[in-house]
């Protein structure tokens, strides 16, 4: 019994309650709701933060098993555990702030920046692989891309003075129209999904699949 309530009913009801409260608070001016949501949202910080800790423990467990079973690249796993605790300690220990401010940007920060810098190279190879003019659609796709690249570079403006203007027009008129329509569609999709979840029709996100039919 307890488990049926816990498993099926309670999650749907809680989702619906919190969802409806959020919606009403947005559209209507009810002071009690406003203070409730403000307080509730402050109370989420520890919940979300706990999830972060769970995630960290999950990662550690995986790599501890790797090390203890000497599975695959276990020395790398050991290194991972080592860096984990190193950065955990320097983050939370009071008095190490300046050391943290020195180490974090130099190691993790640099790595993050390096992986993000790969994106531009990756995108060039994506363009090389997929921008082949097969029909009118791919022609437009490629044309848009080339115009924007040309227009944004100062070189482009030097070769063709109208490039900057062309870029503004492509961005402000057709691109804006297309992206706006996607935005409207996604907004509607979210509402439809929200209604499905709150009415209990779609419980997949709560760990339960709907029957076919």
């Amino acid at each position, binding site marked *: 019994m307890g488990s049926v309530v816990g498993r099926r009913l309670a999650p749907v009801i809680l989702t619906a309650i919190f969802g409806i409260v959020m919606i009403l608070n947005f559209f209507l001016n009810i002071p009690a709701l*406003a203070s409730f*949501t*403000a307080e509730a*949202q*402050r109370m*989420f*910080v520890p919940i*979300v*933060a706990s999830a*972060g800790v769970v995630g960290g423990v999950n990662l550690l467990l995986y790599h501890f098993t790797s090390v203890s079973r000497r599975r695959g690249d276990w020395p790398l796993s050991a290194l991972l555990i080592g860096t984990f605790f190193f950065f955990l300690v320097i983050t939370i220990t009071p008095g190490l*702030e300046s050391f943290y*401010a020195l180490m*974090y*940007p130099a190691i*993790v*920060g640099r790595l*993050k*920046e390096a*992986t*993000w*810098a790969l994106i*531009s*190279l990756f*995108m*060039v*190879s994506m*363009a*090389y*692989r997929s*921008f*082949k*003019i097969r*029909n009118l659609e791919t022609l437009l796709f*490629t044309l848009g*891309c*080339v115009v924007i*690249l*040309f227009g*944004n*570079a*100062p*070189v*482009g*403006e*030097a070769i063709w003075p109208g490039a*900057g203007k062309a870029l*503004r027009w492509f*961005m*402000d008129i057709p*691109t*804006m129209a297309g*992206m*706006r329509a996607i*935005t409207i569609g996604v907004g509607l999709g979210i509402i439809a999904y929200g209604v499905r979840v709150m009415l209990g029709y779609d419980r997949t996100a709560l760990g339960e699949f709907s029957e076919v039919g």
Partner: protein
Amino acid sequence: MSLEKLTKLDTRWIYLLFIIVTVAPLISPLGLPLKISDDTRIVFDTIDAVPEGGTVFFGSDMGMGNRGETQAMMVAVLRHLFTSDVKVISVCFYSSDSPILLEEAVNEIGLANYDKEYGVDFVNFGFYEGREATLVAFGVDAHAFLNVDYYGTPISELSIMDDFKGAEDIDLVISLSGGEIFPEVYLRQWQTIHGTKVTGGAVAMIYPMLVSYVASGQLSGLLASSRGAAEYELLINKPGSAIIAMDSQSLGHMVTILAIIISNLGYFASKRSKKGGLDI
């Protein structure tokens, strides 16, 4: 070599070419000219128009990964803010990296160079987890939400916070955002509720999404990536790192266009040889 092979080039050659053309201008700059766009000028004018003694909320909503694009922008905008008589309050809702980046930018500028004092004219509250939900909580009552600043100073000792309650006291929100469409969050949660004016800058990835908000007037101008930063540096007369990078970027784009042309040449050649004639 037949043209058909051009479709199956090893992408590593393209990578190599791209790397060479982006590195070369850093070693010997070309100094290509730069035009200032309207959007950048609007941002400049909006920040200029903040009344004396007004409060600006500075949203440093980027992560370490965005540093290349947003750091120059942040430095340029902060320089401009510090030359005028406004209070700058910053809370980061995006990533735990943001306060570090903000600190770095402020150190680079030097508060003392502009006769500003920490806690009186500027404060950095660090990062708060929870994104949109926490942003709402801050907007309603900042004092109930914040306890200490990034360096552990209690809020009661920061005189900048004395007259500040929440989003209603903010004259302008500047959101420099990377990765996620953060200005949109301020629009949703603060502008629709408190009527706050919002401006900012965005990394190029999300810029197209925000263009429609600029067009509809919800956003007062927008800095576009490092190009916007370079233009802003020109506007405040402090040429910096963004302008230097523009040359490399220009050449990089040309390589991308070249890659697209090569791949299409190869594609059409292979099509021709297969069908024995041009057939689009």
